[in-house]
């Protein structure tokens, strides 16, 4: 009956039962496991009566520390998803020699696309943004970020994107185009399914979240520093945060515009990147990499900041060549915008263009090299303690140099003509993203975990996790360098070349070692939570730290600092400890005052709820639902904009009560440090 079908199409768009992959056991089982997991957690939360706590203390929280923790939690869960994809890919390439392996191409192609998308947008990005959120206001000595509610909106929109990507596992399909969805393959004529739509709408929604987070952190660093915290006294992590978020603000709109054009092609028959009617794929390549290359530095700059903090703290020295490091950071920030063309030397642009972009790309290696040497000289003359964060940092320095070498190599156009898109390239960018960003994220996680939760992480499991990950990385990716030199290109679902086979088997074994590393990391968390009383950090300064986040208790009170710290030099807290003159420590009874803090707000969560509905409806062409979601999200914003009260007061007595507990613990420590 055509009439019935029309009504169905109006109500459900493209959605019908065929969207559920009943014939494909792997995604169905994976989806079912995830669903059962989520349902289990939800039921447990409701039955145990934790729902009000979750709602008031986390979901609606606008506290930058809570939001930071939620970002990192999201990243960790997504790391497991992206990691599962990686395991499946490594197994497929290990077995698919002269055979189809166990994954048909339409499934394998989804997996590598999802792996890239998830690892960059929903692991690396939320992990570094989470750490920046958690730590930067503390290091700057302030009570919150510039726009607390916007911060919450940013997080929940990122979560929406992650949710949509994972929904594609069980309803419909994900893109089969690679993580950058190059047209014309991603255009409607060659990818008629909903996969590319899932990809594009997830990134559009989470992209808004990232942009919002970027604006927020830039404003925070520029406008909200405590007394005496001028630019050249900011900890290195704040500098790299500034650089990274300036890049977010400048680059993410390019991504949004590019994907918007692709979506216009797919939804409304435009011809930006189609083969027909004057569309041009070269424009997409340029635009996507004009975002994509800065993106690399958006990720790695905060990691550089983390290593700067860690190496300095565990060497017992201030960062060597601080001003040089600031200069290097900002140089990377600017130059990273001028090199995008090196991603497609093989397009056939002339030799002048290729050479200029090749040399520009190499120039980035100068400030990066300077950073390595400054960390090296920070260690020189230090007293190095090999705690877990320091292990990650040394592992990073060694690994990242090798990644830098291969990176400069592919910046030489004639060498890139052989290595472009090869497994060598895959090995290179994993070398810098795992060795740089992921090691940095783990170093930051180990380093700041006590600050966030008030207890240290178990040392033994942490070190095991490091060694397995470090070794696993090399066993997995050195073989990929080798097969790249043997002519293997990326994204091959199967192959017939015998010379590649042994290396793919070694890489699969390496993946197993990496997996053990991840298991150790999970074990570390479990063991540490169980032994949290023994690992408790009562002073707020477990590592003998140097910057202001260590000047408050662990976890910090909601207002961070009872008094706005007064900064008199670099390494503000070290300075205070050394001079033992922290004002509140000298005088017995400091004058506490009322503190105003932003109120919790469900705006972010509700907004993201409607955004999820809208995104899903857009993917499936369910237009009434699109309108509903759009109105809902806009109404949420209007209600928030018309609010009357957005702050509440913490009375001075309460501030005093909270602060005195920590002061007692800290006094002994400060007098000890003062004696040194």
């Amino acid at each position, binding site marked *: 009956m055509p009439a019935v079908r029309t009504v169905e199409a109006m109500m459900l768009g493209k959605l019908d039962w065929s969207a559920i992959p009943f014939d494909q056991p792997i995604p169905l089982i994976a989806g079912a496991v995830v669903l059962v997991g989520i349902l289990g957690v939800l039921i447990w939360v409701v039955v145990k009566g934790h729902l009000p706590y979750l709602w008031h203390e986390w979901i609606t929280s606008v506290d930058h520390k809570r939001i930071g923790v939620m970002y990192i939690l999201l990243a960790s869960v997504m790391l497991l998803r992206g990691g599962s994809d990686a395991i499946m890919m490594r197994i497929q390439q290990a077995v698919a020699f002269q055979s189809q392996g166990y994954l048909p191409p339409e499934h394998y192609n989804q997996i590598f696309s999802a792996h890239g998308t998830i690892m960059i947008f929903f692991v690396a990005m939320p992990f570094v943004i989470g750490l920046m959120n958690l730590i930067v206001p503390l290091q700057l000595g302030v009570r919150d970020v510039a726009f607390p509610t916007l911060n919450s909106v940013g997080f929940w929109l990122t979560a929406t994107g992650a949710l949509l990507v994972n929904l594609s596992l069980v309803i419909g399909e994900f893109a089969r185009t690679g993580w950058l969805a190059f047209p014309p393959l991603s255009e409607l004529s060659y990818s008629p399914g909903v996969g590319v739509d899932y990809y594009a709408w997830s990134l559009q929604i989470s992209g808004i979240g990232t942009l919002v987070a970027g604006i927020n952190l830039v404003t925070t660093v520029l406008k909200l520093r405590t007394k005496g915290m001028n630019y050249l006294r900011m900890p290195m992590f704040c500098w790299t945060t500034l650089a990274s978020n300036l890049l977010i603000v400048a680059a993410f709109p390019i991504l949004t515009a590019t994907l918007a054009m692709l979506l216009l092609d797919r939804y409304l028959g435009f011809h930006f990147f189609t083969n027909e009617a004057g569309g041009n794929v070269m424009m997409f390549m340029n635009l996507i990499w004009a975002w994509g290359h800065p993106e690399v530095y958006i990720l790695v700059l905060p990691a550089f900041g983390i290593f700067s903090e860690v190496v300095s703290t565990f060497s017992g020295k201030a960062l060597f060549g601080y001003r040089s490091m600031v200069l290097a950071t900002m140089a990377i920030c600017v130059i990273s915008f001028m090199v995008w063309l090196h991603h497609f030397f093989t397009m056939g642009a002339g030799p002048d263009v290729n050479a200029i972009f090749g040399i520009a790309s190499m120039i980035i290696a100068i400030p990066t090299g300077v950073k390595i040497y400054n960390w090296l000289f920070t260690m020189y003359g230090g007293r190095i303690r090999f705690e877990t964060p320091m292990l990650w940092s040394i592992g990073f*320095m060694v690994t990242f140099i090798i990644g830098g070498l291969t990176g400069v190599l592919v910046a030489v156009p004639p060498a890139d003509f052989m290595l472009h898109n090869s497994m060598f390239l895959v090995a290179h960018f994993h070398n810098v993203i795992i060795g740089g960003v992921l090691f940095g994220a783990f170093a930051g996680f180990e380093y700041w975990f006590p600050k966030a939760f008030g207890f240290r992480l178990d040392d033994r499991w942490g070190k095991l996790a490091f060694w397995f990950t470090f070794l696993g990385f090399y066993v997995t990716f050195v073989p990929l360098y080798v097969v790249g030199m043997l002519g293997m290109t990326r994204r091959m679902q199967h192959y017939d070349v015998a010379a590649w086979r042994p290396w793919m088997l070694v890489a699969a074994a390496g993946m197993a070692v990496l997996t053990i590393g991840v298991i150790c990391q999970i074990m570390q968390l479990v063991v540490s939570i169980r032994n949290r009383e023994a690992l408790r950090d009562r002073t707020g300064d477990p590592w003998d730290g140097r910057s202001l986040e260590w000047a408050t208790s662990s976890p910090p009170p909601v207002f961070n600092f009872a008094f706005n710290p007064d900064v008199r030099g670099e390494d503000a807290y070290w300075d205070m400890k050394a001079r033992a003159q922290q004002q509140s420590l000298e005088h017995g009874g400091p004058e506490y005052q009322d503190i105003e803090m932003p109120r919790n707000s469900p705006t972010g969560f509700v907004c993201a709820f409607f955004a999820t509905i809208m995104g899903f409806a857009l993917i499936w062409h369910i237009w009434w639902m699109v309108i509903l979601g759009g109105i809902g999200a806009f109404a949420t914003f209007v209600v928030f904009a018309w609010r009357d009260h957005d702050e509440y007061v913490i009375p001075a007595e309460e501030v005093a009560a909270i602060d005195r507990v920590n002061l007692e613990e800290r006094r002994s420590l400060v007098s000890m440090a003062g004696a040194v």
Partner: protein
Amino acid sequence: MNLLDPQGPVAAANSTILVDSVFIMLAIVVPTIFAILAFAFWFRASNPKAKFQPDFVYSGRVEMVVWAIPALTVILLGGVAWIGSHQLDPAAPVPGTGSPVRIQAVSLDWKWLFIYPDQRIATVNTLTVPAGAELNFQLTSSSVMNTFFIPQLGSMIYTMNGMVTKLNLRADNEGKLQGLSAHFSGDGFPDMMFDVNVISPLAFPDWVASTAKSDAVLNEESYKKLMQQGVEKGRPIYRLDDPRLFDLIATQHIPPGPGPELVSDAGRPHSGGHDAR
């Protein structure tokens, strides 16, 4: 397919630059890695012999050196890149013996079509070339992007619909090589590997003559059949009907190849995937 076993001048030059660049960088990278490990070990907190210098946080001399080392390296490598980019521009001529062979390559979903306009023949998934002659490639795509790459002959280049890219190569030694697409192009992408037969210049005319006897004719009609999505396991050969076929493809007089046939409107994971194989 070993990149370090080049079979032509372009690949040889590419891999020389590759190896040279690695060694230039290793000269700095190895000592630096060694220094990292050595400093970390010597200045460990438990080593009483290491001198603790907490105030050693700036040194103009050290800064000068650490900016200079990477800068000098990059100046050196930048020179390599500049000269290399110009000498090894894919469109630059590669002189050879005898007359150059013109080859027009078209990437199809998911096979390679090689048209020899001067010889009026065409082959699918095999490229036969005479050793020692300059090979002038013109490349385009029937639908999505691909990259034409014969690892042991060097320099890869994109193929794009509605556009023509240029690449000049030379194969020096007779033998069998392999080529592939180095840009993901859909479900049949891994089956886009092709054979490269480098034969003696004397045997080449014979091969052309025997190919030209093929019953199959490549014209607009048979090309349109060929560009349907699918994997080609065989190695078809054709007599070329119209030597302007490549231009018709590149200028879109023959419209771009179709995508998958839709089974239903819904975004089923299988729509397009299953009928391809």
